[in-house]
Structure formats: structure tokens, C-alpha cells
């Protein structure tokens, strides 16, 4: 049977802010977004709760109750970082960890019976880890996530741990008052009218009765009161550190070669990190040496950065000092610690691309000025038949403007390697010497060793200039590969494969 642990952190963000600024621990403080028109209290500290200030209370009421209230604006970044920090602590206890996007974290304990045979000790471990932050926490363990969630909120007094025995979810929930289970207002009024005061009485209603009365609104509630709902939280997948690696075919200990290779890897790594709008705060280098030893070292730049040159300088300083016992077989670089990139850092990273674009445009303008528009071109395929007309040389500027061709980095290139052609335009006329088995013209002669073909090409018969060609591939005794065609009772050399 599966078990789930729920870690409830009441006033999650506020307690985290108070942990950073202890001076607010004694004063009544709330978190509220006062920039909105009808601002409401989001979270209230313990002194504020004692004064009667509660969540969802209007700011007007809250200030009336306590004029000296300290209002802290919500900080999504801080909240997210705190959440990630807690998740990192919980990942060490269970493989599947989740979050309900509010103030509760869940650990799926399925399959961890041998790791955590005693659930009470597991709850203590969770408390000890959260105490590192520190935050007040309540831990509950039950069969279903919703049962654990309800059990955590049902803890009273100094109790910080609640363990529901296996198979007793329904019975446990039944003992609790109605207020422990969040439900829509309509259903609350319905229960009040009917005189239902506890969850046990709600459980006595026939299955589906609430759904027939309230429709979809009651579907989730029915599953929860019977401890059958497991859609309380979203599983949080831990982000794996960005890593790049390279296996060397030839082990090396040459400083130059190693720096070259690390530069390429760093460029890829910074690009991946930048795409997530992060910066590298700590870079881990891993080398596997030829003597099967592993060298690992971490490098911290002065400030989290996206500059591969800065990181390469750190690597280079250490390379020159270190004494390798063997040659390097494989290299891995990983961004073990990352931070949030500032707008300036992202702009500087993009600026490198922008500078390259500006330099390219400047070079293009100079080349066009020197050689003309028709000499600065890019190849494009056209829908024609004759090989010499298949490529259209389009001037580069108009080609860039007309088609938004953006090739993303690391586009996989086809593994085929088609040969390149040196095209003679116009084709060179050759004469065939049958006796000596060679083609020749005024400049050169080609002794034939082998031929492939023919390949017949005929078309445009509806045109004034139809064509009818027989193509052959000629292998010469000098290892050249020629493309010839027979037309108008004459051999023509279309090109060489080079």
C-alpha cells in the first residue's frame, strides 16, 4: 500500500522572510499586495494572528485591528527560491516529491519501506532538515495525499507530527470536524442546513449524492472525504545540472589542446544555461584519466557569469599549475550551481551575437561595394531540369530579406557526404579518341579507366530549345571523376567531382 508524507509549512513565505530578518518575529507582520485595489492579507505572522488578523482579510480591516502592522510585499522570486531549497532537502529523502503550489510539500513513500522502515523517525528526519532553514513545520503521514494534507492541518497544540495508521484514512478523516476539509461555500451551506457537523456524517451520505446535487463541484470533495483523491499535488522533477561532456579518442595532456576543447565545451554549456535565463555560479570540472583515476574540481567565478572566457581563464590558471599523473581520456563540465541571470547579463550575452551580426553586415556591405551585388551570393535550388541551371546564385542580401531562414544551433547534419561538383559553364567540348580510349580537348586529355551510366535526361520538348542528353560518369586513370554528356553529336564535359 502506498504511503504519502505531507509537510505543511504554515505562513510559508512570511516565515521564510522572518527567518532572514528576525526583527519581524516579535512584531505583527503580514504579507499583502497593497498595489491592487482591494488588497487582502495573504499571510499573517503569529503576533498578527493573535490580534485577530487572518488570511483573506481586507487590508482596511487589518489596519483597523492593528495600525502598526508591518506590511511586506510578496516576492515571487524569494518564494520560488525557498521552494526550490526545500525541494532540494526533500529530494534526499524520497524519489518523488511534490508541491501543491501553496504551502504543502509531499513525499511519495512508495517503495521506500526498506529505507524508512519507521515512519516516526522519517518525520523526525524531515523536521531536522527543515530546521536548517529554519521554518515551523508539521509533518503528517497517511495513505493518500489528501488524508496526509488534512491530518497535517488537524494537528493541534505542540504536536508537529501526525501519523495515520495504514488503511485508516477514512476513519481518521471521519473523526475530524467539517472545517478541516476545504469545500465550496454552497456545499458548506448545504451541510449546515442538513445539520452535518463532522466529516463522518458526510461520509454516511450515499456515494454520488453530492455529485448528483452539485455536479462537478462535488466530485473532488466526494473523493477526498473517502480518502481517494490523489491529485492534491504536482510532482516536482528536480532540475538536473546542465552538463556537457566529451570523450577523447586520443588521450592528451597537452595544455593547448585541453584549452581548445574546454573552450568549445564551455561555449555549449553557457548557451544552454543562458537559454534558461540562468548564470553559472559554480562550474564543476571532471576528468577521467588514462590510469582510471578521476579528477574533479570546482571553480567559482567572482560573480555568477555567462562569460565562457572568464570561466576558461579560471580553468587555464589551474591547468598550468596541476600535475597530471596520466593523460586525459574524457572531460565533463557541469553547472552545479546556477543563479538567476540579470537583464544586463542576458543583454551582454546576446550582444555578442549582435556584434557578430553587425560585423557580418558591415563585411557584406564592403564586399558588395567592391565586387558588386552579383558576386556576393548564396546558392539556391531552382525547379528546372538541366544540372547547370539547377542552382540559382541569389544575391545574399535579398536572400536574407526574403526568407527568414533561421537554423538553430546544433542542427543535426545528415551523415551522407555527397561529392561536390566543379561546374564548367559553358560545358567544355571534348573529342573521343576511340583508339586510345581518351577524351581530349586543346588543353587536357582524360584517359578512361571505367564508365558508369548512361543516364538519360530529356525534356522541354514543348519549348523552342528542347534538350536530349546522355550523361555518363567517367573514372580516369588519374583518379578523376568526370561528368560528361552527349548532345548534338558531341561530347561535353559538364564538370568534375571534387
Amino acid at each position, binding site marked *: 500500500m502506498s504511503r504519502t508524507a505531507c509537510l505543511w509549512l504554515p505562513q510559508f513565505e512570511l516565515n521564510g522572510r522572518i527567518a532572514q530578518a528576525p526583527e519581524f518575529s516579535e512584531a505583527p507582520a503580514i504579507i499583502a499586495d497593497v498595489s491592487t485595489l482591494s488588497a487582502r492579507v495573504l499571510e499573517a505572522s503569529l503576533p498578527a494572528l493573535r490580534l485577530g488578523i487572518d488570511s483573506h482579510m481586507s487590508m482596511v480591516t487589518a489596519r483597523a485591528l492593528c495600525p502598526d502592522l508591518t506590511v511586506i510585499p510578496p516576492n515571487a522570486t524569494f518564494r520560488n527560491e525557498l521552494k526550490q531549497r526545500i525541494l532540494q532537502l526533500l529530494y534526499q529523502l524520497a524519489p518523488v516529491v511534490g508541491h501543491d503550489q501553496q504551502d504543502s510539500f509531499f513525499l511519495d513513500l512508495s517503495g521506500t519501506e526498506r529505507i524508512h522502515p519507521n515512519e516516526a523517525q522519517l518525520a523526525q528526519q524531515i523536521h531536522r532538515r527543515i530546521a536548517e532553514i529554519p521554518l515551523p513545520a508539521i509533518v503528517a503521514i497517511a495513505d493518500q495525499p489528501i488524508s496526509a494534507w488534512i491530518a497535517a492541518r488537524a494537528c493541534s497544540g505542540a504536536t508537529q507530527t501526525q501519523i495515520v495508521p495504514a488503511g485508516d484514512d477514512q476513519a481518521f478523516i471521519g473523526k475530524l470536524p467539517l472545517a478541516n476539509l476545504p469545500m465550496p461555500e454552497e456545499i458548506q451551506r448545504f451541510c449546515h442546513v442538513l445539520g452535518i457537523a463532522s466529516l463522518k456524517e458526510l461520509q454516511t451520505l450515499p456515494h454520488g449524492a453530492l455529485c448528483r446535487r452539485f455536479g462537478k463541484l462535488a466530485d473532488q470533495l466526494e473523493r477526498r472525504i473517502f480518502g481517494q483523491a490523489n491529485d492534491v499535488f504536482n510532482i516536482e522533477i528536480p532540475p538536473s545540472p546542465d552538463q556537457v561532456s566529451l570523450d577523447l579518442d586520443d588521450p592528451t595532456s597537452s595544455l593547448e589542446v585541453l*584549452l581548445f576543447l574546454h*573552450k568549445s565545451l564551455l561555449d555549449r554549456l553557457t548557451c544552454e544555461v543562458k537559454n534558461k535565463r540562468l548564470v553559472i555560479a559554480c562550474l564543476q570540472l571532471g576528468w577521467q584519466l588514462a590510469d582510471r583515476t578521476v579528477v574533479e574540481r570546482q571553480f567559482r567565478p567572482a560573480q555568477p557569469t555567462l562569460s565562457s572566457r572568464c570561466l576558461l581563464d579560471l580553468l587555464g590558471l589551474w591547468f598550468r599549475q596541476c600535475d597530471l599523473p596520466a593523460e586525459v581520456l574524457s572531460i565533463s563540465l557541469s553547472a552545479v550551481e546556477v543563479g538567476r541571470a540579470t537583464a544586463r547579463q542576458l543583454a551582454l550575452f546576446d550582444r555578442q551575437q549582435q556584434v557578430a551580426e553587425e560585423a557580418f553586415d558591415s563585411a557584406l556591405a564592403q564586399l558588395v561595394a567592391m565586387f558588386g551585388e552579383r558576386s556576393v*551570393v548564396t546558392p539556391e535550388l531552382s525547379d528546372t531540369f538541366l544540372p547547370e541551371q539547377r542552382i540559382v546564385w541569389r544575391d545574399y542580401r535579398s536572400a536574407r530579406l526574403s526568407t527568414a531562414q533561421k537554423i538553430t544551433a546544433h542542427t543535426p547534419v545528415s551523415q551522407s557526404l555527397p561529392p*561536390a561538383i566543379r*561546374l564548367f559553364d559553358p560545358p567544355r567540348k571534348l573529342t573521343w579518341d576511340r583508339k586510345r580510349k581518351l577524351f581530349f580537348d586543346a588543353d587536357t586529355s582524360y584517359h578512361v579507366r571505367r564508365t558508369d551510366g548512361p543516364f538519360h535526361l530529356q525534356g522541354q520538348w514543348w519549348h523552342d530549345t528542347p534538350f536530349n542528353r546522355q550523361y555518363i560518369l567517367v573514372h580516369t586513370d588519374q583518379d578523376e571523376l568526370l561528368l560528361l554528356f552527349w548532345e548534338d553529336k558531341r561530347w561535353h564535359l559538364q564538370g568534375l*567531382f571534387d
Partner: protein
Amino acid sequence: MFSHIAQQLQLPTAEQRQSTLEVLQSGIDALDQLLPCGGFVGGQLAEITGNSSCGKRTLATALCANVLAAGKRAAWVDGTGQFYPLLQLEFGVPLARLLVIRAAVERPSERDRRETHHSETHHSETHHSDSNHSDSNHNGSVDRDHSVDRRVNVQPANIRRFVDRHQPSGPLCLPVLKAVDILLQNNGAVSLIIVDLPPQTKVPPRLLARLKLSAEQSGVAIVFLTEQIGRSFHGSSSLGTFISLQLRIKRQSGTQLGIVVAKSKNGKMAHQAVVTIDEPHSVSLASTI
């Protein structure tokens, strides 16, 4: 001696300063494994040489395609006017962003004809301007100063052609090198430049030295494609001592290319590899129908 002093002072040497340059891989496993640093190094000059139809343009095109696929820019300076990547485009090799500069290589005979035409044109203009001048003076129009034209009586037969004894023979490659220089001066414009030189082209060493310096400063990899005439597979580089890497290519069969590292400043001298390319007829001329 200086490197010893630099080491004592712990100053970075030229090699260490160059250590931040990138390596461009060709995407051909056999070739990348053969090369000393796993690819063509930015800031260095490389040469791929071989007989005609040995497969050097095939390898260079594959290198361009891999560089373009990595999101970088590549340029092909075509000095022969014969670059035609038909099969690559038909096979979907991404060459759409390849910048091709069709720089005509000026031959000495063409230069002489150009100079002769210029002198004849100049002479006819001089005569025409003289007559116009007299007419304009007669008509009271603005008088232009043709004193220089009057003093020099330019005749085609009087043109003295100065032969630069230090100028190597063969077709001049100045337009090609100028195009390369423009790309290098705009730092960061491209990551790779392929320079396709015609046969028997000699590059003046001073220009090559300047290109090498510009390439080092900009971090651009330059690959020269040169053609050897005749069957000789072993010989000196036609581009002198400024080349850091020279690969000699020989077609061993219709689809097998033998590559030898003939020169390398980063090791792996005389290492060899065989690269397999596609059969031309397997890519089918019928695709053009």
C-alpha cells in the same frame, strides 16, 4: 630564449594567448579524429591540397555545412568560378546561409588588357578634353585646368610596363585575398573562410603573413583549397611556412578519399585516414528530372 624568459616571468606565450580560440569540426568522424585538435582551429591557416577531382571541395563543403549547422557563419571565396554545390543542396545539406564571394582571379593577360584599355581611354579623353577646352574657351564657358593633360602626351606605345621581378608568376589572387581581408577586418563576421584558389596560383608571402596575423587577431579559421598538378603526392606547400595544417587528399577509389596530414604545428604529422563519400550516381542525376 624569449619563451624561456616568458616562462620565468610567468607571462603568457603566444600559444597560451591563442588558447581561447575555437575548434571547428567538419562533422566527418574520420577527418575530425585525424586532425590534431579534433577540427580546424580558429585563428590558423590550413590548406587542403590534392590533384583535381581528389575530393577537397567535398570535404570543404561538409565543413561549411557543419559550421553553418552549429549556428555560426561561413564564407566561400571562389577564385575559380566553378563552385557548384548541386548535390549538397539536393541532399538537404544546409548551405542556405553560406556566403559565396565570386571573386574573379585576374590573370596577367587580363591585367595588361585592362591597362592598355585604360591608357587608350585616357588618351582619347585627353584629346577630347583638349578640343572641348578650346571650344569652351571660345564659347566663354568655365575653364577647366588641363595643364597636367597637356604636359603628358599619353600614347599606348609609350606605356612602360614595370615588371616586378619579385612578383611570382601565375594568376594573381589579389581580389580573392582582398575579399578574405575584408571578412577578417570585420571581427566576428564569420567563423570560417574557405579560399578556393585556381591551379598554379601563387600567393605573395607578405600577403599571406598579413592574413595570418589578421586571422590570429580575429580567431577565424581559414582553409585554402589548392590544386597540385601532376601525379606527385609529396611536395612542399604552395603557401609557404604560414600554414599551420596541410592535408593532402588522394582519391583511392570512386568513393574513398585518402587524407594525410602532411604538415601540422599541433602534432599528428603523417597520420592518415580514409573518408568515404557517396557514389555520385547513387545520389542520382535523375533527381534533376
